[in-house]
């Protein structure tokens, strides 16, 4: 028995290792096997759809694009320093252009600290721009030029350049970026994200249901939105 015992232990550990790896790939959110009802089928069988998540309120008024009465309400939790969020930005612009008034986009701040050292500074810059009515202009610049600043030591002058570029009152913007009001908006959006189970960015909800990460490429997100329109009878 003693001769085979070590081999038996090794075999058991091998079995447990393979079994747990297999199990984890099945239960991890976003993996194809954990979403047995893909979006393309969900409208055909609405009963199988998960209930919408309401969450606690975020910062008000939220930053939105599109009609408040749009049948498809898309809410993104984003971090300006997160590369996948930067890649998602043009996709969302494309969806906004394609679906027009049928889609309303809301952006929520979800800076990932300490993963991204400039995430809060970027979020504050955008929120401070928002206090002068130019949130989306700053949002677009931060995402479009993410590669220019995300690895820099000092992003202050770069963000100030963006503020000038979009015609902000730069002194006011600087003061606002460090203000309690801006910090509170970011905090409230983060609280909302946590209450909705957001773990990372970008996390996207459509009408309160999380869109799996693998459904975020343009061609798949388009189908998810079309299905949602069909489900609401607006297509």
């Amino acid at each position, binding site marked *: 028995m*003693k001769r085979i*015992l*070590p081999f038996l*232990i*090794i075999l058991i*550990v*091998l079995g447990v*290792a393979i079994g*747990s*790896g297999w199990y*984890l*790939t099945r239960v*991890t*959110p*976003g*993996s194809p096997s954990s979403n047995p009802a893909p979006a393309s089928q969900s409208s055909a069988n609405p009963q199988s759809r998960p209930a919408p998540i309401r969450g606690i309120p975020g910062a008000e008024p939220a930053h939105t694009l599109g009609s408040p009465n749009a049948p498809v309400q898309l809410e993104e939790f984003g*971090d300006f320093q*997160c*590369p*996948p*969020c930067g890649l998602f930005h043009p996709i969302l612009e494309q969806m906004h252009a394609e679906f027009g008034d049928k889609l309303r986009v809301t952006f929520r701040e979800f800076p*990932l600290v*300490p*993963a*991204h050292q400039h995430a809060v500074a970027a979020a504050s810059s955008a929120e401070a721009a928002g206090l002068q009515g130019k949130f989306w202009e700053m949002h677009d610049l931060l995402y479009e030029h993410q590669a220019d600043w995300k*690895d820099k030591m000092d992003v202050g002058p770069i963000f100030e350049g963006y503020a000038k570029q979009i015609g902000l009152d730069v002194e006011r913007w600087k003061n606002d970026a460090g203000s309690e009001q801006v910090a509170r908006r970011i905090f409230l959006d983060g609280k909302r994200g946590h209450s909705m189970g957001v*773990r*990372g*960015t*970008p*996390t996207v909800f459509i009408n309160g249901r999380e869109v799996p*990460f*693998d459904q975020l490429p343009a061609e798949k997100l388009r189908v998810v939105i079309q299905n949602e329109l069909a489900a609401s009878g607006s297509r």
Partner: protein
Amino acid sequence: MKLYITAAAVSLIGLADAIYLTVEHVTGQSVRCTIVAGCSEVLSSQYAVVGGVPLAGIGAAAYFGVFSLATLAAFGYRLAGTLLTAVVLLMFLVSLWLIYVQAFVIHAFCQFCLLSAAVTTALTVITLLARRTARLS
């Protein structure tokens, strides 16, 4: 013997960590940014894949190898002890390289990768101690 049992136990932490990282990699979770810090940058970098195989998967296989060799060494297989030292030293060197890559190339640290480096360092110390004990006795 006790040192080899300790090495086997410690290698299980590394194995669990590497399995987790492999799953993150395979399911594409690694491409989303997370609160955990840095793992998306590290796992989605070109350094996370070797010859089409996720590095975390190779790490899992290595930890399983260490567990097997440490278990055999604990049961008195002398060759296993020698092989274990060689494998662990190699893993230690790879860990040093990966920390260098995270610090100076990717500029992001993945905590789960750092845990793996810590486990490998602990394994190196334990294995070298076990070799010394074996030689003295």
